[in-house]
């Protein structure tokens, strides 16, 4: 451009076009109305570019995914936001923590609601992450090439539990104190390093100020960071492993007549990603392969927005209706009777009541190892992408047995255990 002063008219134009230009500078695209713009919207937006430009119709079927992974993620976002807000009022001190809970309930505006959202969000996340794990198992989605992503998923599940566990101590009420006392004692049963882990977690020989501070740091800094990283890897791997799993017959069979004879050995149509895919693929003509994909904008994004709205409204409504419990202040001499862990650990507690090592370390340890090893032991490629496929009868049966056993233990622990952990009937 020449150094001459721009005409007055163009300055006026600049003024009138200011909103449009600001919009363009941020979003680069107008609201898309053709396929090129739809693609462009997906990959030029920071928040959207994790998504593929086009998404397989199977991934959008609510009945297939139930939206569980996405719900878990949105719950995590809600937890991060409410958690950061709660940090403004929380003090990790044995003399102040409980008082701060009372203040949140009493004098802080929206304090009760935010605590409720954080509590119910955490419970919801544990439940949804577990259901997501079940979904992935029942549809056989951990199979090649998604083995590693399954492992990351199992780690995410454990991190979620640990996150919830560390958060439990923070209100410093009776429930918290005794749940953590029991929990760290269970860690103490791990072979060889158990006592050291227990000592490291508690920062002393009993649950006290040091333990509270340690659990606080784990809960608000260490674990969220690790969890965020693991989630990023999880999402990235979904893309790199070829999107969500789907049945073999989910894509139309492509006539290969057009393909050169020397490439005829590559029979399956592959979805293409970027130029590398274009170069490697059998069919160079992108967009002309008959496939079952649709543009992410607006199909996927609307679905995601919808999931978010549903998740948020569910948490909000729950938080309006039910208050997060706050039990008596810590009394280190008197456990409440019965001293119960949160519901998702009640299965564990029930097992621990039979044997501390086997219930707390042995059986859960074996279960986790089995989970981690599943994709490397089950090498069959059949039954992917279908719920309860008949090809996977054995694997599904074993898994269901574990799940049902745990659910039964949780139900026993929740409803059938009274004072001194004696068996009672709830009616």
């Amino acid at each position, binding site marked *: 451009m020449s150094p001459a002063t721009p005409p007055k008219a163009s300055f006026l134009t600049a003024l009138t076009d200011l909103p449009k230009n600001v919009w363009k500078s941020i979003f680069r695209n107008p609201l898309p109305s053709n396929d090129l713009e739809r693609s462009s919207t997906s990959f030029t937006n920071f928040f959207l570019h994790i998504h593929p430009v086009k998404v397989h119709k199977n991934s959008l079927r609510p009945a297939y995914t139930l939206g569980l992974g996405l719900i878990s993620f949105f719950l995590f976002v809600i937890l991060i936001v409410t958690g950061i807000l709660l940090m403004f009022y929380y003090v990790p001190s044995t003399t102040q923590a409980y008082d701060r809970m009372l203040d949140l309930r*009493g004098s802080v505006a929206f304090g009760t609601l935010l605590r409720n959202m954080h509590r119910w969000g955490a419970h919801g996340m544990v439940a949804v992450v577990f259901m997501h794990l079940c979904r992935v198992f029942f549809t056989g989605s951990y199979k090649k090439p998604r083995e590693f992503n399954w492992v990351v998923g199992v780690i995410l599940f454990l991190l979620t539990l640990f996150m919830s566990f560390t958060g439990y101590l923070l209100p410093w009420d009776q429930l918290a104190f005794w749940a953590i006392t029991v929990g760290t004692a269970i860690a103490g049963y791990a072979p060889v390093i158990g006592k050291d882990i227990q000592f490291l977690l508690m920062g002393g020989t009993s649950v006290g100020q040091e333990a509270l501070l340690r659990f606080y740091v784990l809960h608000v800094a260490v674990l969220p960071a690790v969890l965020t990283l693991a989630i990023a890897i999880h999402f990235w791997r979904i893309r790199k492993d070829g999107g969500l799993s789907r049945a073999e017959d989910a894509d139309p069979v492509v006539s290969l007549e057009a393909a050169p004879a020397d490439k005829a050995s590559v029979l399956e149509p592959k979805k293409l990603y970027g130029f590398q895919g274009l170069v490697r693929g059998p069919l160079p003509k992108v967009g002309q392969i008959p496939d079952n994909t649709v543009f992410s904008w607006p199909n996927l994004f609307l679905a995601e927005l919808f999931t978010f709205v549903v998740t948020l409204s569910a948490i909000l*409504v729950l938080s309006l209706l039910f208050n997060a419990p706050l039990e008596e202040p810590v009394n280190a001499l008197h456990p409440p009777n019965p001293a119960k862990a949160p519901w998702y650990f009640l299965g564990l507690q029930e097992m621990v009541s039979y044997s501390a090592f086997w219930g707390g370390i042995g059986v859960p340890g074996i279960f986790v190892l089995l989970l981690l090893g599943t994709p490397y032991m089950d090498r069959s490629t059949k039954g992917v992408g279908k719920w309860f496929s008949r090809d996977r009868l054995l694997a599904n049966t074993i898994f269901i047995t574990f799940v049902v056993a745990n659910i039964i233990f949780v139900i026993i622990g929740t409803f059938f255990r009274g004072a001194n952990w004696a068996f009672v009937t709830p009616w």
Partner: protein
Amino acid sequence: MRFALAIGTFLILVVHGIVFYNQFGHPWERNQNTYFDQAKVLAKTDAEKAALAARKPRIEQIVVSNFGETRVDRCTTCHIATDDPRFSSHAEPVKTHPYSPTLGDFQKDGKWERRHKFSEFGCTVCHDGQGRGLDAEYSHGKDEYWPDPLLGFVTQDNWRKDHAPKLKGKEYMQANCAQCHTDTAFPGTALVTRGRQIFFASNCYGCHRIEGLSDGTIGPDLSDVGRKWKLDYLWGRITDPKSILATSIMPKFNLKEEDVKALVAFLKSRKGRNFAETEIQRFKVKLTGGAELVQATIKPVKINPPEMVKQGEKLVLDRACTACHKLGDRDGGIAPDLSFEGSLRDSEWVYAHFKNPKSTMSDSIMPAFRFTDDEFKAMTAYLMTLRGQATPASGEAIYKNLCLRCHGEKGDGHGPIAEHLDPYPRDLTKAGFMNSKSEARLVNSVRNGVNGTSMPAWGKAVTEEQAKAVLGYIQTTFTKEPRRELKAKAIPETNPVAMSPESVTRGEALFVNRCAGCHGRKGDGKGPNSLDIQPKPRNLRNSFFVNSVDDKRLFESIQYGVQGTAMPPWIDYGLTNNDVGDLVNFIRSINPKTKGGQHAAAIQ
């Protein structure tokens, strides 16, 4: 889809709106506005009015750090007229806190002045409740999880409906007054003082420990009971212990309601440490055991020899002996009947038993109470006058009068007080046992008692004929098998092995090998198998028992077993008379031959 999305976002908006709206228009804001309006009417000067007009509703709080941890009391946010004497006839919450000389308030120039200024004391120091709350439900402590609901004003929903009305009344607040006013003669804490007296008069201290006041070990430590438990629990635990804990062995004291109230207030005042104490005072109490505190609470009765029996009777009746024992128509249902004590024991035994119950009965659960020696003597003298009624003639009547309390209605040993006796009463339905003992021995047990157990010597009350009659009744009613001819047993009259350290060592090795499973390594009858055995294995360290039986009987029990119990005939398992001799020597060696047995040293 898009439609559902629109509805969803609308829902979120509505919920947000509700949440937002909920943050405004608090009840306390309305309270404060009411107060400002009414105060404006009462205001005398324009400046006052202007000052009120400038005030806006906000959270009022009193921060107090004089009493333990820092307290933040926001009570005056609602109770905003607490210190405004013009509102004394208004309704709560905008009402003046009453002035009262009992609280130390005084009048100066015709105006009331407070002794305890709210700005210095806050509210929860006296009232309890949750100072930080701003919602009546939470701040008054109605929430079942709040440990200290407004003392004497608020009951929680999960409290027993029949207790709740009795737990209201501002006199309960004396428990908090007593945190600073520890003087036992302080007029403002009459209820707590009365409770403390009952704690001693009803012998609560015999079982319970309260730091600086008592050191009983049978029941739970009550040093900080007021901090741990709410009024409801304390009331229930005193009036009906089993209703709260089924396995409780605490007797029902049947106290009058106002006494229970006093006791509850006293217990509520025990919070581990009170505000008036200093570390030094506490340490002193630890060193001296707080004896002067006890003396200040309960004055010993001055015993006047001519009236000794009368005074003893009064002591026995007043000081809750019948909370456990039976005497006439009073029955605690835990300990033996005292109605025949004069015919069963001699005064020496009773006195020694008073001084230290374990000195006459190894496993007695009776605590050693803190009476003076003179008081013990008077009570002994009174008990010695108790001879019961004339013993009836028929076996059945004798059994029902004398035996049933321990041996039970069905003769199976599960009498009403049996579970508190150690050793457990004999099961008379076991024919194996009954028929393997000679009638002479059974009569002997009845008339001379069994040393070291709760079976007293009935000899002065029951003649030999009567003993035979009652045994006959037991035989036909409970044992239900006719007596058989006793088989001859080859039992040495005396121990063939002389007592020597070598013999004891051999005996101990044998004992650990053969007997410890049931009788325990120490011979105290608490071996690992003892849990499943009924009757329990004999405590071989019960010197009163062991020293009262001769070697012949020990030989018989070991070699031929005790039928009807888990004790097998060891002759079948290859024990020779010499082995048994070593065992007997070992058993004798762990029971010193002093008069009082192992606990004798304790009363010397």
